[in-house]
């Protein structure tokens, strides 16, 4: 799915404390691209991701998704947009603690019309042996793999990853990034990764560098570095 972000403005607070966190963002992300949103804390990258994900609304502007635009969507349509098109991966995995690994993935499989085979996916993620364990019995990397599995099982056209390696060590981070790259190659979904880790930009097709609510740079990489070769 191609995403077109049109002149997004977003404000937080009211009166004197009103702050503009996105100051007119324009960009396009093509279908099947890995797009890395780079920037320091407070640059507005997570807010932009949330707006693209239909979780937050923009105060001005909109995101074009195929034929429709997010600002004209009702709550029901936004839910359906997330349900049919999006997968989310969070920094702290956000797994449901009282569900097993398999059941956490089933949470999203339940929503999909044509979900991927869960056992196959578990094998791909290297979690098949751990499928009946609770999240608390897994390492951080395993938990993030489970979270990626949960996002992927719907076979979403867009995968939104908010700091997916933010809570992981160096080796596990690379393992997760490699998994994301493999997923992109296998399923051709558009993937947006929010990160403040500059090194990750190498694996992206497109890098959007944000600063103070604006896009400073919109770089298209002609070649992508293998995630396993990334260094920081």
């Amino acid at each position, binding site marked *: 799915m191609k995403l077109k972000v049109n002149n997004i403005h977003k404000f937080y607070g009211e009166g004197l404390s009103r702050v503009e966190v996105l100051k007119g963002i324009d960009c396009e992300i093509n279908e099947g691209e890995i797009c890395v949103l780079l920037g320091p804390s407070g640059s507005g990258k*997570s807010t932009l991701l*949330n707006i693209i*994900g239909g*979780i*937050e609304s923009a105060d001005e502007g909109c995101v074009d998704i195929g034929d429709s635009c997010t600002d004209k969507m009702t709550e*029901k349509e936004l*839910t*359906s947009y*997330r*349900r*049919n098109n*999006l997968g*989310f991966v*969070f*920094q*702290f995995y*956000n797994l*449901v603690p*009282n*569900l*097993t690994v398999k*059941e956490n993935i*089933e*949470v*999203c*499989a*339940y*929503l999909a019309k044509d979900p991927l085979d869960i056992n196959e996916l578990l094998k791909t993620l290297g979690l098949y042996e751990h499928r*009946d*364990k*609770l999240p*608390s*019995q897994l390492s951080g990397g395993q938990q993030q793999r489970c979270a990626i599995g*949960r996002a992927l099982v*719907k076979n979403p056209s867009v995968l939104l990853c*908010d700091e997916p390696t933010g*809570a992981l060590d160096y080796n596990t981070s690379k393992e997760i990034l490699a998994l994301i790259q493999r997923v992109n190659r296998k399923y051709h979904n558009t993937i947006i990764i929010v990160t403040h880790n500059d090194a990750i930009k190498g694996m992206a097709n497109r890098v959007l560098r944000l600063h103070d609510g604006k896009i400073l740079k919109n770089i298209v990489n002609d070649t992508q570095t293998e995630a396993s070769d990334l260094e920081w």
Partner: protein
Amino acid sequence: MRNPLNNRTFRELKSNAGKYIGLLCIILTVITIGSAFMVCLDGTSYSLSKSDEINLTEDGYFETFFPVKAETTDWFKDNNIRLVENFYKTIDNYDDHATILVFNNRTQIDIPILIENGNYVVTSENDWSHVPALKNDEIALDRVFAKANGLNFGDTVTLYGISYKIAAFTAFPDYTSLFKSNKDLLMNTTDFGIAMLSEEGYDRLPGDIQTLRYSYRFEKQLSKTETDDLNKEILNRLVSGGEAVSEFLPRESNQSISFLATDMGKDGPTVEIFIFLLLVIVAFVFAIIVTNMVEKEASVIGTLRSLGFTRWEMVLHYLRPTIIVTFVAAIVGNLLGYTVMIKPFLDMYTTSYCIPPMVISFSFKAILVTTVVPIVTMLVINVLVLSNKLSLSPLKFLRKDLKHGKQKKAMKLPDWSFLTRFRIRVILQNMGSYLILFIGIFLSGLLLVFGLGLGPLMDNYVDGIDKSLPYEYQYVLKAVPGDVGGEKVTMQPVETHFDFAKKDIEISFIGVDEDSEIFSNFKKSDNKSELVITSPLAKKLKLKIGDTLTVTDTYNKKDYTFTVKDIAEYDAAMGAIFTRSLLNELIDKEPDYYNSLVSNTKLDVPDAYIAKFITRSDMLGAAKQMLSSFDVIIKLFNVFSVAIALILMYILTNTVIEKNSLYISYMKVFGYDEKEVSRLYLRATTITVMVALFISLPLQALSFKAMMDVISSMIDGYISFYIPIKVYVEIILIGALSYFAINRFNYGKVKKIKMSDALKTRE
């Protein structure tokens, strides 16, 4: 320096005001009702014991067909027993419905206390006064009967064409409960009353309606065994002395005196247990709320513990909301209990029982049960739960790893649908909350069973008597009147031991003619060693065909052992049915002996031959009267039970939502709509509530049955357990409707959970 953490307590109370107000309401109601009830109970108990001393309540009475002999009177005197003539005249059909026993002026025993208009409460027994001397045209009337019949001070009461002016309302110590007959199951304040006249006034009434009652009082304090022995000795002396005794009733067996004390004796512990159970439930609800708070604030606790706060400081900190709420409820509850709530309880006692003005004073026991017990219960349960929860190391709190011992493993579930497994996981996750919810639903339902089931139960009881009673009129005879028609019956009271209540109870042996038309539907025992017992006796003593039963004929001092041959569905009597000839043989009477006549038409039996005349309506009329005196309390029970159910459902289901609010937010992000999220999280609660409602029904029915067994053990008869299907349906409907009201609210709460909550950076 004041602990700065304390500032959080009021903020916590404010931010979770709904829950704390709900819990405050439950504790407040429990304490208010408990305190009012206990103050009333204490007051009644104190007043009764003082009345015993001041008004010289009898230790027993007997009635004879002829005045007792001088030797008998001397025997009593020699044995240090005060024997007093307590003669009365029976006014049947007063105002076409009531029976009044009019006593001759009493000065030496069972002296009535004056009750001035509406003055039912006093601060000391010194405020009591006896009925002033009556003129010969004045009458002192039992207050409860007078009130039930709309009689006022100064009104005229006409007895046998003679007018008496009501000069006083009184409480008779030997008739605190108005049982017309000691065999009655229910009091009857409308159709049965007591009155007293001056000697001259008494003499104005015809002499042939007089019953010779002698009341006695032991002049010294005796133990229970000594009392029992002396009572037996008195009866033996009367029989051996050739006195024509028609009735002998020691105080303990006299329901009119003992019922209130026994009733209170059973009510007290029942209410205390109920208060305690509800408090334990509330304590666990607090524990669940506080535990959730600890889990939510794990990293803060970890930080504070790392900074040097001790475990006990943390325990005390998290205890504060619980203790503040309980303390406020205890203070306000006791104030309301003593002032506002005492009224309906006083009304309940004063409408049903005729007692001296109640001496209400500070009740140490009420304070203990309604203040100390709640606070201690909350403290003990919450300190145990909290100290266990907070015993983990600061590091574990910082890591939010709040599991004790080994890491928890997932319970393996069968390969059911995802939704089913998800809901089971929610139920497993919230076991504690759901368990408390289950107990709450059970207890509130039990109150509802009582509130909604008592009416149908009593109707069923009356209906059973009505259907099985084969005659309209019964004449208990003093002497055989000649041929006046009707069927001849021998009635013989005997005693048997009632193991459950650890006491002897009186049952009736009924001898009817072999070819009786009236009793033609009932089997009769025609064998000396076999019994056909009536169904109430079978149920009360839990007797089956083939069991043995030993009875004692106290008048003839004989023991008999029988085998139960059959059970007759005869709800109107508690005893056994024989052929008359066999029963007469058993009790050493002539073959044609009889002491009662039964008939479906009124018989022309001269009054002089009648000891007692009982009609069908006499036997049936009391139940509704009894129910009306419980009206306020039953309504209170119903409202209270629904309130408990609503509050517990609100708090506990809310806890489940709060605990899962983050995950509900995730679900929304993933694309679940609000209905689907509700199906995941609220449906688990719905299933639990519905299962709890249905499972607790039989448990409530069993508990109610056990309560009925206890009540039946206190009375001479037996009230069969009966709850119509309608009541079960009502309980389920009330429970389900209460839940769905709460569920609507919860749905709104789920709707309000924002997706952005899932995106906040958290560890």
